[in-house]
């Protein structure tokens, strides 16, 4: 029963992953990826990691991918142009991928551990305990990382109007300007 369920989830994930790569439309890729994240969340639930599953959906599906979709829509990327790829290196990439998979497979296929008795560990209490005691420093460091990312993206994404520097915190204006630009792009397309 569980194995059947797993196989369903796994095939869905693989299909979604293939779709991410195979789709020519970026937005379709993005939605395939969201689907994949959903499948993984389910997989996490089968692994008793409820908190991680919820966070997976909230952070990945709910926040990161929304950002992706937002940018795709903002830049109005309709379709990837089809063009013969002349980069010689890419010939190797698929065999290399196969090789990588082969290696991982051979490395892991016989990986077995003795079953360890004990309660499931994915509770929010356990994770909270871990994050705020033993791994407090990494946790705090990630908060600094996030802060840096915020500052960095604001600096990168904002546009200076003819040399005079606009208020950094007005990032909604950036969005507005970008949208105006996007409609301009659309007009030129038409």
């Amino acid at each position, binding site marked *: 029963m569980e*194995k059947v369920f797993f196989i369903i989830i796994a095939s869905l*994930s*693989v299909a979604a*992953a293939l779709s*991410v*790569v195979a789709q020519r439309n*970026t937005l379709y890729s993005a939605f395939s990826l969201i689907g994949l994240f959903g499948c*993984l969340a389910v*997989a*996490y639930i*089968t*692994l*008793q*990691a409820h*908190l991680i599953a919820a966070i*997976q959906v909230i*952070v*990945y599906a709910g926040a*990161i991918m929304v*950002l*992706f979709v937002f*940018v795709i829509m*903002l*830049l109005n*990327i309709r379709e*990837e*142009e089809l*063009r013969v790829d002349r*980069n010689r*290196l*890419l010939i190797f990439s698929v065999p*290399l*991928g*196969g090789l*990588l*998979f082969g290696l*991982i497979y051979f490395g892991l296929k016989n990986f*077995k*551990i003795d*079953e*360890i*008795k004990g*309660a499931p*560990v*994915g509770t929010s209490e356990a*994770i909270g305990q*871990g*994050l705020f005691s033993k791994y407090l420093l*990494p*946790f705090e460091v*990630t908060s600094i*990382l*996030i802060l*840096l*990312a915020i500052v960095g*993206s604001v600096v990168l*994404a904002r*546009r200076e109007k003819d040399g005079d520097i606009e208020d950094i915190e007005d990032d909604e204006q950036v969005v507005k300007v*970008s949208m105006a*630009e996007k409609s301009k792009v659309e007009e030129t397309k038409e």
Partner: protein
Amino acid sequence: MVPLSWYLILSAILFTIGAVGVFLKRNVITIFMCIELMLNAVNLTLVAFSSFYKQVYGQLFVFIVMTVAAAEAGVGLALVISVFRNRETLDVDKSNILKL
């Protein structure tokens, strides 16, 4: 009970697909997404090990990986926007001036 190795192999498949995707795709956003895919494959491994070993640390690591992924997405997409503004394209092969 699903054996651990099944999770690991699922993770391997996903990782490989992500990696190959990075090479095959020309669109920078798709490449980004492929990277996210690889990260998720790794996360799956971590969670699987964590839950089979009954050790919470793998999941803590996943937590941190997610934070990093979020930060990366934020900065990366900001970069994408500014590159797009300057070059009007997302094709990474056209942004190839970084060379001798």
